[in-house]
């Protein structure tokens, strides 16, 4: 068994209200070092084997179902 990680993030130019809300809460908690927050999603996909064919399938589903290419970017990596 292997695990493939898909990270999905809002594109840099797209407003991220959730990230802004998190960032807005930090000063109230006394944290002042963080200058910006962007919030995304992480998917952990269990696969039999992380070979080329499987990764091609993961890329296909990451670009259609897991992310919306209009507003999000995704990246795929095999969890070692």
């Amino acid at each position: 068994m292997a695990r493939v990680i898909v990270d999905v993030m809002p594109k840099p130019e797209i407003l991220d209200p959730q990230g802004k809300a998190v960032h807005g809460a930090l000063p109230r908690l006394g944290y002042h070092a963080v200058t910006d927050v962007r919030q995304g999603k992480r998917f952990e996909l269990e696969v039999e084997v992380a070979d080329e064919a499987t990764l091609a399938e993961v890329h296909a589903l990451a670009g259609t179902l897991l992310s919306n290419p209009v507003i999000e970017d995704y990246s795929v990596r095999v969890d070692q």
Partner: protein
Amino acid sequence: MKVGVVTFPGSLDDVDAQRAVRIAGGEPVALWHGDHDLKGVDAVILPGGFSYGDYLRAGAIARFAPVMTEVIAAAQGGMPVLGICNGFQILCESHLLPGALIRNDHRTFICRDQTLKVESSSTAWTSDLSVGDEIVIPLKNGEGGFVADEDTLDRLEGEGQVVFRYVDFNPNGSLRDIAGITNECGNVVGLMPHPEHAVEDLTGPGTDGLALFTSALATLTSA
């Protein structure tokens, strides 16, 4: 004329949409998300709500529902399709309409009677309206911010594909105050506010929403 209204798990306004079709003089037909069957309808409405709990992204899972195979093919073949709120989100996720809807810029759910300016009367769903008309219909959404890249926005404006714009107040951070758009052919329209909630004086801010449904029936009759 038969107008199908799709019910997804989590749809809320499917019955209101059916009622609007009936008041407009059409015959509403209930369609089920899990069926590969449009039951011979002449037009389709994707109603508001929270299909599949809005999990992943609003409309993202509904887009792959069995019935959507038929809806997408019919829309590409010219059938009038209207997406209201969650239905608009589904149309964007299906790539039947460009752009996407994201969380409101002020991060809160908003519910209000919203004034819209009609920007196009040359769609299947707005032929009974005139450009420049102002209509008031309810708006209720948490993820209604319309976004697209600058080129797409310029193209929408240039090709007359902006159908409705928010007036006086932008309730969700939509770029260029866009409340509703259409595809290149004008048969597919999506908007965030809810015309089906403004079809009777007793239950809404007026009857301005009725024009969208009578427009589609008129379009079908004249076709």
